[in-house]
């Protein structure tokens, strides 16, 4: 996907002033947050389940090479082919090679974030083949000239039904529909035709199961089920970190995934696909491929933010992030928005390309508290900030300011004097109202709010005076 992370501030500002988006974000916030809170109450031991989930994911990461080999062996034993891709381009090339080998013409695709990383759809189209996104949200974005998704699990979250209606009318050449039900019906009819004619099914993976060499897919629409049932070839494209040792452990993760994502106890469809179709089977893929993609993941594994690889892409950290709630996913400028995005994006595209992302957080901690696999997201954002200081990526004013403040704070005598003078100046600036409307150097503060002025003397001088008079 095209990188726009360097324009974070500008993009965020546009989104802050986009009234429709603001309305949609507010509406969705309440639903996601409220439904999750309800759903986790169904688990008697939610915190214990989170701890178990963290251990499951961490065990895999600590032995990732081993589990990858076990997975590969078991998938191969069932007739699947396991391919490896170091880069997004290599992943795309694998898909095109597969299409050429089996003479495939039309890909039907269920949601895959990894394929967004590699802009797979564009690669397929450039090769002269057809590709259809089948997740309704993704489909809406695809027919709108590949508008980027704004949310990991609800990609078209930012669009209103009126926008969808106009889009459908334009692209399908049908009379505009007004109801959401009718819009979904129209999409159903269009997509059904594609399901029946697609010969290449492409999916992501919610989990890869090492013990069986399977992929587990989780959807409500059932589109992944269709994409993996009807076409003669099924290609799974996913990151190397998605492995889970056993089906039982996947069950634990699933309890948390659906609840954290949409507040559901389970999604309508959970599919576990293992190998190619057997003798006498009518439906199912004759050829199955796994494309295991690195493209930055081993870099994460070797870094201080390696815990981010535990992520199961539920989106809870986005839904609960007060920054995301106000600016939406597009502002972040790459595939993964929100707190998890701000942690992994710099590792995938380079720290210097995404300087704003780790800083665009108040470190309020809401993301870390909801993460079902206990990724310490605020700590990892802080690790990036440390890396930026080390790599000289912070502006000199900021560095000088911090160094100056630290030096002063290490010298209490001077500190006392400087603050005495400082608070008197600020009191004067505050005038009779007692607040400062415009601040030099830190206009970011005073553009949006006043600074209540200090009362004129510091605690340390008042306290010293009190002690003297006592």
């Amino acid at each position: 996907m095209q990188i726009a992370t360097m324009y974070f501030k500008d993009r965020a500002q546009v989104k802050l002033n986009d009234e429709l988006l603001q309305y949609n974000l507010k509406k969705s916030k309440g639903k996601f947050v409220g439904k999750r809170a309800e759903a986790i109450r169904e688990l008697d031991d939610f915190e214990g389940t989170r701890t178990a989930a963290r251990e499951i994911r961490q065990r895999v990461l600590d032995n990732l090479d081993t589990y990858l080999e076990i997975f590969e062996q078991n998938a191969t034993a069932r007739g699947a082919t396991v391919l490896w891709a170091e880069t997004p381009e290599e992943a795309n090339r694998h898909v095109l090679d597969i299409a050429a080998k089996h003479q495939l013409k039309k890909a039907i695709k269920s949601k895959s974030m990894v394929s967004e990383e590699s802009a797979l759809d564009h690669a397929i189209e450039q090769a002269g083949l057809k590709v259809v996104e089948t997740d309704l949200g993704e489909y809406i974005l695809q027919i709108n000239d590949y508008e980027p998704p704004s949310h990991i699990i609800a990609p078209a979250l930012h669009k209103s039904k009126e926008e969808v209606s106009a889009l459908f009318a334009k692209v399908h050449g049908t009379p505009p529909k007004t109801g959401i039900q009718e819009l979904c019906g129209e999409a159903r009819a269009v997509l059904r035709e594609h399901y029946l004619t697609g010969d290449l099914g492409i999916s992501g993976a919610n989990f890869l199961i090492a013990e069986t060499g399977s992929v587990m897919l989780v959807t409500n629409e059932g589109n992944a089920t269709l994409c993996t049932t009807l076409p003669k070839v099924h290609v799974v494209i996913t990151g190397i970190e998605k492995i889970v040792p056993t089906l039982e452990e996947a069950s634990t993760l699933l309890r948390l995934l659906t609840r954290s994502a949409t507040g559901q106890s389970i999604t309508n469809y959970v599919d576990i696909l293992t190998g190619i179709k057997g003798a006498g089977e009518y439906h199912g893929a004759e050829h199955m491929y796994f494309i295991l993609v690195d493209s930055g993941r081993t870099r994460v594994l070797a870094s201080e933010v390696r815990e981010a690889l535990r992520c199961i892409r539920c989106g809870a950290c986005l839904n609960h992030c007060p920054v995301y709630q106000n600016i939406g996913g597009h502002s972040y400028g790459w595939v993964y928005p929100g707190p998890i995005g701000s942690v992994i994006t710099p590792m995938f595209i380079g720290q210097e390309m995404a300087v704003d992302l780790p800083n665009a957080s108040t470190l309020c901690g809401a993301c870390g508290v909801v993460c079902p696999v206990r990724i310490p997201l605020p700590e990892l954002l802080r690790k990036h900030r440390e890396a930026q200081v080390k790599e000289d990526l912070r502006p000199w004013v900021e560095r000088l300011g911090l160094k100056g403040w630290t030096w002063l704070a290490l010298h209490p005598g001077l500190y006392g004097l400087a603050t005495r003078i400082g608070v008197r100046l600020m009191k004067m600036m505050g005038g009779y109202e007692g607040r400062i409307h415009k601040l030099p150097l830190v206009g970011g503060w005073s553009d949006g709010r006043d600074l209540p002025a200090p009362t004129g003397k510091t605690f340390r001088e008042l306290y010293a005076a009190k002690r003297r008079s006592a």
Partner: protein
Amino acid sequence: MSAPARPPERGAKQSPERAQPANRARDNILGRVRQALGKTGPDPTAREAALAHIATHPIGPRPALPADLRQRFLENAAKLESSVDQLARREEIPRAVARYLTGIGVPPRASGWPEFADLPWGEAGVEVAIRPTQGQDPVGLTSVFCAIAETGTVVVLAGPEAPTGTLLLPDTHIAVVDGSRIVASMEDAFVLIRKERGSLPRAVNMVSGPSRTGDIEQTIVLGAHGPFRVHLLIVG
């Protein structure tokens, strides 16, 4: 795969290794993973440990369920908008299907799995074609491997006599559930599959109510791509 890993060479594009790019990528990725984990090569001890771990099939925290799994299953299935009918005997299936389809005004034409061929469909006035469907049939009739009380889910295993399309393509999916095969949780379903089938079939499809989407303004609409209705007949 047993060939020793060679370091990637500069200008590899022209080298004979181009013939096996997949293996090169594999070796490089596994090499980087090992480097990140502080390992120098394949680790047989870790492999033994991982296989031993897998063999234990560890079960994590699960919500406590009441002794009456059937009751819980019924409650949860209803929450997910599956409709349910309870029958005493298998022979009652055709009439129950006819009753249901008449009730919702759907023509009594189904594609069904072979195991239902012996039932007296004609008497009930239901036409059941024993063959896979390509979507032309308004109703699909399948059995299920087992049902899960914790979530109100039915577990469908694919096979030569169990084509997956039957539960996906028709607008209405009718699933016959053996009342004695309602297990507590998903973990129990996997244990049962291992016990009775040994290995996983090509597809395990777990269905919890009709296909739905919330992608437009987070408004739930049923029948996104698959069935609009899932009707469960619990037998016995």
